[in-house]
């Protein structure tokens, strides 16, 4: 079992004819993902890595019976690409693109709320169910199959934590990179509830960071609604206020909202052990299991 994606997921890659799109479509296929089509306006009828390209996402999804899309298009066009996917038959949209204007994402989020679909990202590495499918740009080889669910706002930090888990033989059901932007689709609470309902997931790791209050809301949700144990990690303890730390969403506001301390405290109060180092996160997972 897993959440969001598995070996049966049929994927359309939006932007498959671009440099990034073509490269990562190839990587996804090499990993075993069912990439069944590409969608690029004006490029219908072409082929990339042996899969057909369609002019529209709906055209691709209908012809190839696809149920998920991966958005690998430049930031200026990415919000439109997400709207298109939300207006097509696919149920899951994974948006990798970094640098989408925040107001565009605000409109996307509004539309998303009017559908039953899942959006993961943007500004994220994607979703992987080890051994079955990866939708995005994660390095497949570091993941291994197991019973730990993983949720993270950051790409390389996820890889680091996975590395520590894998070193101890702790594999993953699914890893979800939810993205480092201020406004994202699937948030911690959404992802936690997916794992809570997955019988194969016996423990969950959530890697948060400074900015916003998603982690605090997740803590409340865990406290009130969850049985599956959760281990936490929060990046940005040393970040100064008012500075954007790489991710558009990773900023402690001038008034001091969104600090690591506040998140660590909220998680601690909800009974979630928060590691001081990635190694300690793996220790905590071992204990929880």
């Amino acid at each position, binding site marked *: 079992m897993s959440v969001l994606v598995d070996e049966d997921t049929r994927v359309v890659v939006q932007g498959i004819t671009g440099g990034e799109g073509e490269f990562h479509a190839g*990587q996804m296929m090499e990993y075993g993902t069912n990439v069944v089509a590409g969608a690029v306006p004006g490029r219908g009828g072409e082929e990339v890595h042996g899969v057909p390209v369609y002019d529209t996402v709906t055209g691709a999804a209908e012809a190839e019976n696809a149920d998920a899309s991966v958005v690998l298009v430049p*930031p*200026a066009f990415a919000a439109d690409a997400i709207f298109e996917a939300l207006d097509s038959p696919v149920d899951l949209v994974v948006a990798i693109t970094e*640098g*989408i*204007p*925040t*107001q*565009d*994402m*605000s*409109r996307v*989020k*509004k*539309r998303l709320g009017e559908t039953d679909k899942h959006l993961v990202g943007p500004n994220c590495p994607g979703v992987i169910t080890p051994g079955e499918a990866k939708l995005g*740009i*994660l*390095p497949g*080889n*570091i993941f291994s199959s197991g019973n730990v669910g993983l949720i993270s*706002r*950051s*790409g*390389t*930090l*996820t*890889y*680091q934590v996975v*590395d520590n888990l894998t070193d101890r033989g702790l594999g993953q059901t699914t890893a979800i990179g939810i993205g*480092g932007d*201020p*406004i994202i689709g699937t948030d911690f609470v959404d992802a936690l509830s997916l794992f809570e309902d997955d019988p194969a997931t016996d423990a969950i790791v959530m*890697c948060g*960071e*400074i900015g*916003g*209050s*998603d982690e605090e*809301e997740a803590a409340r949700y865990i406290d009130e609604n969850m049985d599956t144990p959760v281990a936490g*990690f929060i*990046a*940005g*303890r*040393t*970040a*100064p206020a008012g*500075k*954007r*730390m*790489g*991710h*558009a*969403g*990773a900023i402690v506001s*001038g*008034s001091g909202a969104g600090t690591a301390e506040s998140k660590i405290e909220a998680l601690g109060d909800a009974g979630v052990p928060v590691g*001081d*180092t*990635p*190694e300690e996160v793996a220790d905590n997972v071992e204990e929880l299991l």
Partner: protein
Amino acid sequence: MRLHEYQAKEVFAEAGMPTPESVLAESTDEVLDAAESIGYPVAVKAQVHVGGRGKAGGIELAESDEEAREAADSILGMDLKGYTVERVLVEQAVDFVDELYVGVTMDRGAGEPVAMVSSEGGVDIESVAEESPEAIAREHVDPAFGMHHYQANRAVYDAGVDRAVASDVASVLTTLFDLWEDRDASEAEINPLMITGDDEVVAADAVMNIDDDALFRQPDLAEMEEAAAGDDLEAKANEYGFDYVRLDGNVGIIGNGAGLVMTTLDLVDYYGGEPANFLDIGGGAKAERVANALDMVFSDDNVDSVVFNLFGGITRGDEVARGINSAIEEFDELPKPVVVRLAGTNAEEGMEILNADALDIEQTLEGAVQRSVEQAGGAQ
């Protein structure tokens, strides 16, 4: 990107917002000319990106040539919280009877914008929010529709704005929201919005921050961006295309990916050291990029040691190692000790390839950070 007050006021005035007459000046003579053309009394206001300018002595009122000269002499060239004042805005002083606050920002938790009005203007709105949150009326706005007129009215009446000016204030709020939206702002704020004795409303200050990710479609605003004043290293990082933040410590940090670099900073602190910077070199590890990153941290005089933490994903560890090796060839001798730690795809191959004569190689993130902290003088 944050606009200066004079830039934001140009944008405001263009949109029909009532703003006082003003002129930008760079010398005492220019201040005097401006004051004469506007007519006394005038306010002389420092144009630097610093909050609380008034309290820090960056705003002076002048009622005569003599006072304008004094104000210009004291403000031009002054150091305001680390920024040298090079320009002032000379502005018609508004004779007000009341001060309001109006603002629009993105509520990231709600995922939609929020418009705000408060009758307690002219003071720090963050402290109003903390001490008397009921004094701020808030309206969340559906981003698909924009702000409805009734919402502007409701915010104004809820805030208890004087009925004589309510309709004008609602119209200012509507204009401000439209500007916020049209110009891809993350924040737009007027504090204070002044009310005069004859019930005129005037935007006496203007704050506008633009979403960096939207500058590509706001070319005229992008042109207003100036080289980061105050810190040469941050300007250099901009040139190299790095995400960089300077801190006060002495352990230089280079890594890939925002979360992992933040974690490396946190670990330096955890093991008793003090991080000197945040530097994310992004994906891949081309020799030129690595060399530029090393150049950046080496040119920070505070740095005593460097920890280089890279996680190879799609970019394999052996490629990364070759990039690092050829980057260090650009330096005759590394001026500061550099600890390298690679992880992820082909990390072991990578660590074998790394130039062990020039670099200290560590197997784990924790080990690498501890070693670098020691090289910088040990735990504080």
